[in-house]
């Protein structure tokens, strides 16, 4: 695992992979949007408003997926002290916060015509809102210290402490009577959605995922370069201390 810890090597791999991933993202999202908006049926109950699902559900999946990645990276950072893990976690949380916001807002826009209300304090929505604030806390905490390592470690502990929220979100619609509908895709017995709707759903989900990796790699490259910048600036100020390294 530490083979990838070398920053220069990571930069080379990231740059090589980025263009392909960006292209894949464009293709997946274009196809996904085509099927979502044009070539998929309206729902017999919800009419055209079901098309919001193709934004809302993948965004919600990403909100949980990104947080799980951050939790995993945090565990790796705390247990094995892998240098890229801290950087990955710090780079990922703004993206996760963005997806959570999209999930909440699109859900609200879907809920108004379907449920008659913009918001309801049921278990699913409340725990997603808590997830959004966990992301904001992670973003703030990792940048709140002069020593970036201290910030990264504190944020890692926060990320792991908050991970309890993820299974709560997933199973909230099963454990409580919620207005939000129960699981209809990731459930025992297979999806209960028509395949013609599954296709755009998965295309958008895949496109969001590759988008996440693209932006994550961009942000990680920036973090590594910023660390190098600090080192170069330090070397200019204290050449003796830098040469001793």
């Amino acid at each position, binding site marked *: 695992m530490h083979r990838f810890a070398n920053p220069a090597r990571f930069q080379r791999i990231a740059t090589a992979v980025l263009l392909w991933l960006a292209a894949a993202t464009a293709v997946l999202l274009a196809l996904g949007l085509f099927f979502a908006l044009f070539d998929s049926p309206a729902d017999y109950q919800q009419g055209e408003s079901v098309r919001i699902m193709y934004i809302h559900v993948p965004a919600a999946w990403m909100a949980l997926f990104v947080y799980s990645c951050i939790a995993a990276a945090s565990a790796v950072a705390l247990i094995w002290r892998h240098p890229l893990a801290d950087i990955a976690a710090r780079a990922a949380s703004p993206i996760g916060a963005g997806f959570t916001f999209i999930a909440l807002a699109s859900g609200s826009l879907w809920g108004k015509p379907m449920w008659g209300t913009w918001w309801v304090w049921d278990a699913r929505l409340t725990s997603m809102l808590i997830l959004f604030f966990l992301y904001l*806390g992670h973003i703030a*905490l990792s940048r*709140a210290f002069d020593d970036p390592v201290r910030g990264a470690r504190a944020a890692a*502990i926060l990320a792991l402490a908050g991970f309890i929220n993820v299974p709560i979100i997933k199973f909230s619609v099963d454990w409580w009577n919620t207005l939000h509908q129960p699981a209809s895709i990731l459930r025992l017995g297979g999806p209960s959605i028509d395949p013609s709707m599954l296709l755009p759903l998965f295309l958008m989900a895949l496109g969001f995922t590759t988008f996440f990796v693209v932006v994550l790699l961009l942000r990680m490259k920036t973090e590594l370069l910023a660390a190098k910048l600090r080192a170069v600036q330090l070397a200019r100020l204290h050449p003796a201390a830098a040469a001793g390294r």
Partner: protein
Amino acid sequence: MSGFLALVRRDLQLAVRQGGDAALVIVFYLLAVLLFPFGVGPEPNVLARISTGVLWVTALLAALLSLDRLFVAEYEDGSLDQLTLLPMPLVMVVLAKTAAHWLLTGLPLTLIAPALAVILGMDAAGYPALVLALVLGTPTLSLIGGLGAALTLGARRAGALLALLVLPLYIPVLIFGVAAVDAATAGLAPAPHLAILGALLLAAIPLCPWATAAALRQALE
């Protein structure tokens, strides 16, 4: 066990000697709750309707007040690493300091809450549930708050950051605490909600000090 109690007693004595904390928290609680009749209007129905939420939310905010002082004094004068050198595990040290914090904030809040409930005109059926819910909920607030305090040691804007980190984690306690009292005033059984509050507390007692100790060690590195 004696070391645990000694640490609790030490924190309590320090707080008493410094005078401020418990009194400040109680006064803040009183003031914050009393703001609502001024802001919302004195109409008894409205006040009774919001009384549960007001009492709980202001309790959360009052609990926040003294949290950032939980470890800061030791952190700033350098005696924090001496806490790790005590013959007790660091987890027990954290538990002791959290217990002292609760005795100085959560317990006083719980004791004056019924009086404030009377002022807000809460239905008397809710009073026992209110006290029980606060007894079960406020220690959890201290435990979660301790984690937030340890994570933000030495951070810029530690006070505001602490609130941002801790308040979302407080929300489950708030939800079930309010649900317990609302159930009682509606004539239903508060027991299920109180049970969940108890479960949250039982989960917090081992987990929060463990994470807090890890955070303290990070702060000391």
